[in-house]
């Protein structure tokens, strides 16, 4: 991964002394640190449909930024554009000052941006453990000849990665299912597998696409807890979510999109009272 300051090693989480914090009080505001995502004038069109139509905002380092808006506002399209899944038609995306716009997803990932999907995309035919162990970049064992020529190196690396993967799996509450196929566990658990994979990358910022959708309340609490805990350790988040309680309790800063544009942004309380925001949501509901 590229240089710059990194969030604290997540491997320190382990099983020992992880606090069961919940709620969203007393978090340090984003100051310095890594994971500042700057989206500037981004346009992504599909034919005549400008799904994302000149969006600009900043997700500050060390913060949890919420991205909300009615269905069809362009939130997921923006995520895909930022993560490199779609090339940009215009605009730029910078992560800690480095241009990542229009890089392929695996290069964006190398810059320290990890993401999850609206509908979970686990590697269904692989165990939860191997889903997570797959993530670290530039494993020597990813070159087939190294398993013939340098088996010792590969084995050492595997031991190290396995240890770290199991710490992260435990942190995400998945230890009981770590040997099960990821395709055979519940949808909520699959969301946690995606979170675990993202954490295994040791990223600067994590993009979560509706982490709470379709998740039962108990698991949702786990997810909220983990996000708060990780944020305390300096990890930045950008989160799409429809669940207002989730957004209000978690986010430091909210960006509201409608019809491909940003219509409001700011502190959660201010944004939620904005007449334009109310209009966008109610307008959508009435149509």
């Amino acid at each position, binding site marked *: 991964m590229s240089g710059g300051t990194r969030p604290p090693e997540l491997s320190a989480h382990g099983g020992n002394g992880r606090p069961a914090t919940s709620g969203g009080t007393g978090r340090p505001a984003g100051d310095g640190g890594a994971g500042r995502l700057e989206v500037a004038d981004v346009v992504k069109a599909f034919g005549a449909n400008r799904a994302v139509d000149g969006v600009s905002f900043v997700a500050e380092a060390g913060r949890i930024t919420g991205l909300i808006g009615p269905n069809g506002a362009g939130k997921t399209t923006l995520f895909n554009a930022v993560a490199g*899944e779609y090339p940009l038609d215009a605009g730029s995306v910078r992560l800690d000052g480095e241009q990542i716009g229009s890089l392929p997803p695996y290069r964006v990932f190398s810059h320290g941006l990890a993401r999850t999907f609206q509908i979970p995309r686990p590697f269904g035919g*692989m165990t939860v453990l*191997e889903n997570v162990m797959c993530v670290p970049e530039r494993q020597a*064992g*990813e070159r087939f000849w190294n*398993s013939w020529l340098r088996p010792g190196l590969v084995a050492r690396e595997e031991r190290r990665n396995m240890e770290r993967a199991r710490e992260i799996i435990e942190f995400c509450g998945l230890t009981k299912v770590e040997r099960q196929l990821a395709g055979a566990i519940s949808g909520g658990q699959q969301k946690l597998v995606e979170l675990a994979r993202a954490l295994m990358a040791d990223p600067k910022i994590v993009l979560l696409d509706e982490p709470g959708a379709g998740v039962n309340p108990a698991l949702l609490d786990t997810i909220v807890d983990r996000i708060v805990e990780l944020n305390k350790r300096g990890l930045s988040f950008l989160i799409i979510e429809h669940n207002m309680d989730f957004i209000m309790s978690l986010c430091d800063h909210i960006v509201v999109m409608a019809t491909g544009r940003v219509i409001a942004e700011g502190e959660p309380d201010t944004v939620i009272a904005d007449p334009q925001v109310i209009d966008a949501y109610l307008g959508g509901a009435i149509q």
Partner: protein
Amino acid sequence: MTGFAAYLVFFLIVALTYSIVVMGLNLQWGYTGLFNAGVVGFFAIGAYGTAILIGPDRAHLIGGFGLPFPVGVLGGMALCAVAALIVGMATLRLREEYLAIATFGIAISIQLVALNFESLTGGAQGLVGLPRPLFGLFDSPASYNLFYLGVVAAVAGLVFLALETAVRSPWGRVLKAVREDETAARSLGKNPAAIRLEVFVLGCVLMGLAGGLYVGFIGYVSPLDFLPILTFQIWAMLIVGGSGNNLGAVTGAIGVWALWAMSGLAISRLLPVAYQSQGGAIQVILIGLLIVVTLIFRPRGLIGESDSVSKHTGAR
């Protein structure tokens, strides 16, 4: 040697040669999800490449370099790698059945080139009278076949071990991740396009290796040996044996080839002479039936894939 033992040796040479092809396909399909329906094309390239390099010089033919057999086989494999690289770069953006259609067509084209490029491939007559490696050292064809079985078994064993070591490492895990969900793999720092191309080339090189061994054994090449039915036989071997498992691939190769050989024998014994030529279709029907029955009753094959890829994570 009795007739049966001699036949068993012959049978095993062919079955183990095919097992190398099946292991190559297993790497492509079983691990990485590449639907290569042009298996026979790459087997043919390896066979013709080897034949052209080891064959004696003939006035009316290009090639005939008279090179030693191992050099010929390596050359055939290299030719396969180049062909796979070109085919792969052109087709690997296609998914599943589209890739299958494209590769199927390419295999047919390769066979047609073999049939028609007479000055290189000998056309419909093929290339005959190719030297069989070390044939002069043996006093009878039977003992030579036994020696050749040893060679093929050693090569197949080596391929098996090399593949098992490679796929049961982080490399195998990445292949499987690409197979399971390319978009997710891409978002996690893997480059699926590069991985697919790498695996396609490696798998095709193994098919070429088998083609070379085949030529060394039978001593000639003919375009009739590379008809599409062979691709389906290879697929049947992989599906029946167990896709995503190298032991399954070898088991399937031996099992399906045994069924093919025995059904051929049964047809020639039981059917009246007048129906012999039509009777061959029964073999093809049997292969289709075997695939369907396997998919219904044992979709993971005789020896299925294991949950854990890496040997480092398989056991606690």
